[in-house]
């Protein structure tokens, strides 16, 4: 089952996500700070080395090598879930640079989280990483399930066919979600302009919007608990 479409898709998406995460980190102010710090360190080690090797080159190569190594290990283990944790970690410095409330000011660390790219690019990077994570997770689950059925005697051609179909639907739904999210963001930017006059009309608007939000949260919680109770009831009945 190793060389099928789903496996290649998993590797490709993991590599794509990792590439975007590295790119995001290299464009963050944290990376700039770290490279300057490394430059200082290299300056103090034997003379002349700074002329040959730049600190940013070392960090870039180290990151790429690190991720390559993890991808190889993941291919060997057939488990791609862990690499996305590192991807999110690498993406966070740049994502936090878009924050309106900067807690790092209290720690005198605000220069570490300054935006160096357009907010749209940062947002798209984040979307791609999360979409890739979702798709890869679903394919991994499907693969595990099919492996289980293979061990029970189902032909490998059948499981490969079902897995390839599942991969196609994962990609399709992942792509559609990406598109819908972008549309929501665009719509939201327009709606804030359109609805802002309406918001001023409502009296005690903070109270009104808070009550509305709490009502939605309670409703969501109610449906969630109802679903869980029904599921447990069915299990007990069986």
């Amino acid at each position: 089952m190793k060389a099928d479409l789903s496996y290649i898709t998993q590797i490709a998406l993991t590599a794509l996500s990792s590439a975007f995460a590295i790119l995001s980190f290299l464009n963050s102010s944290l990376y700039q700070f770290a490279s300057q710090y490394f430059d200082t360190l290299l300056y103090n080690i034997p003379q002349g080395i700074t002329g040959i090797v730049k600190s940013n080159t070392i960090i870039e190569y180290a990151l790429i090598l690190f991720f390559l190594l993890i991808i190889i290990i993941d291919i060997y283990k057939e488990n791609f879930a862990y690499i996305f944790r590192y991807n999110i970690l690498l993406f966070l410095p740049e994502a936090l640079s878009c924050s309106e409330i900067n807690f790092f000011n209290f720690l005198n660390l605000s220069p570490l989280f300054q935006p160096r790219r357009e907010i749209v690019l940062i947002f798209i990077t984040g979307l791609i990483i999360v979409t890739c994570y979702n798709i890869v997770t679903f394919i991994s689950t499907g693969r595990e399930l099919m492996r289980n059925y293979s061990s029970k005697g189902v032909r490998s051609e059948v499981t490969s066919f079902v897995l390839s179909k599942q991969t196609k639907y994962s990609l399709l739904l992942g792509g559609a979600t990406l598109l819908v999210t972008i549309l929501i963001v665009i719509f939201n930017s327009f709606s804030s302009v359109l609805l802002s006059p309406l918001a001023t009309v409502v009296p005690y608007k903070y109270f009104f919007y808070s009550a509305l939000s709490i009502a939605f949260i309670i409703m969501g919680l109610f449906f969630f608990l109802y679903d869980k109770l029904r599921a447990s009831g069915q299990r007990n009945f069986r």
Partner: protein
Amino acid sequence: MPLTRLSLSLVASAFTFILFGMLFGNMPLIYIGAMPMIFLIMVLVLGQIETVELKPLNEVLEVYKDDVVELQRTVSCRGGLGFIVLYEEMPSHFELVEGENLQIHFKSLKDLEIDFSFKVRCTRRGVYEIANVDYNVRHVLEVASPRKGSLPINQSIVVKPRYYKLKKIREHQQRSFLPMPAEAQIRMGVPTTNFKELREYTVGDSYKQINWKATARSILTAAGVPIVNEYEKEGRRVVWIFLNSSQRMALGNSISNSFEYAIQAALSLAEFYLDRQCMVGFSVYNDDAVLLTKQYSKQFLQQLYKGQSTPVLPDLASSHQLITVDQEHAKLIDLSWARQYNLFPDTGRKQLYKIRRILQGAGLRVSGYNLRQTLKITRDHLKSTNPLFIVITTIHPDKIMSLQEDIRELQRYVKQTRTSRKNLILVNISGYMLSSRDEPEQEASHILKFEERELLHSVLPESATVINWDPTEFSFTNVLLSKVKTR
């Protein structure tokens, strides 16, 4: 639609992003957090497969042991998206030969018709019910819990014991040593009023015998030959087959053991003699069984449980209020149902059908009687018939004395003549080879086989014919053919 752990992890990741976004006033993180939720909603909207249907078959398949049967199913799935797992549990004695009884099919948004089939070999006789096909409907991305269910199919498979057709010897120069009963009558005896079958007219048949309605029906299909009624003939010879069902007959494995081959032999011989216009009686006995009175059985059981290896046995009692104790298992067996394993002599296909039906459900230790007790029950039907007895068993040194006594008892019902006519056939099913797995065991089996044959010949009377059958070497037909000699 209950959610799975995977979908809950999606919700958890979404909330983490949104929480971080709200904490830092970070809109990109809030939007990124919304994405898994949107993904989950879209996936859940697509839903699972809604309805799964299977057309119930309500049929009964009749096959012979070791036959390969093709089982076909048509399942239709409607609504939703995802994949369906179909599973059909087979009886443990069925061997999957071709295809799979575990199927996975993917359903896109279109309706799906699944036609699948698989072939199974029925390795053991019996009636098997296939009640339903189980299914498991799974979501395309596993975000919703799988839905399980069963589709009623109601299919019965009747696996009949296989028997070997023993044909007539056509060469005049050849003679079979397979004895016929002593009171042999000619084939064309006085017809009774018992209808036997319809057959084609042959020269010499009376015109009165012609069945005109049957002839009219068959005139379009057959070659225009009249059809005549055939009636059972009077003055039949009696053959009585005794089949041992003791635990010793389990030599071999659960599918292929001495008892299974003994059933084949019994059926083949019954068919052979019924074909030759004989009246065939049939009994299943258990040579481990000992009859005790109710009062004495308690003492006997106590002795067994105390570990006394040779408990004192009482004389056989002829009372109806008896309890049987299986010596090996010390288990009380009720006699009320034991009588059903005796079939009194009769002729024709109907009798063969009855014998086959008994053998279909017969298992080890089904009978609560040993051979002598069986003879006591059936003695009224044996008297003055001078029958041919056939005993199908497995010889064991521990039981040889008991067998000698059984044979002596059998001889009481047979007329003693000056000729060397055979009136007893003892079929010894040698199961040692069935249970031997490697070469040393096979060698040991050969020695045991030799030993049992020697033992048999030393104890059996002149009037007995011995058929030693090792099922791993020859078929039953081949064994009987070895008894054919040229004059």
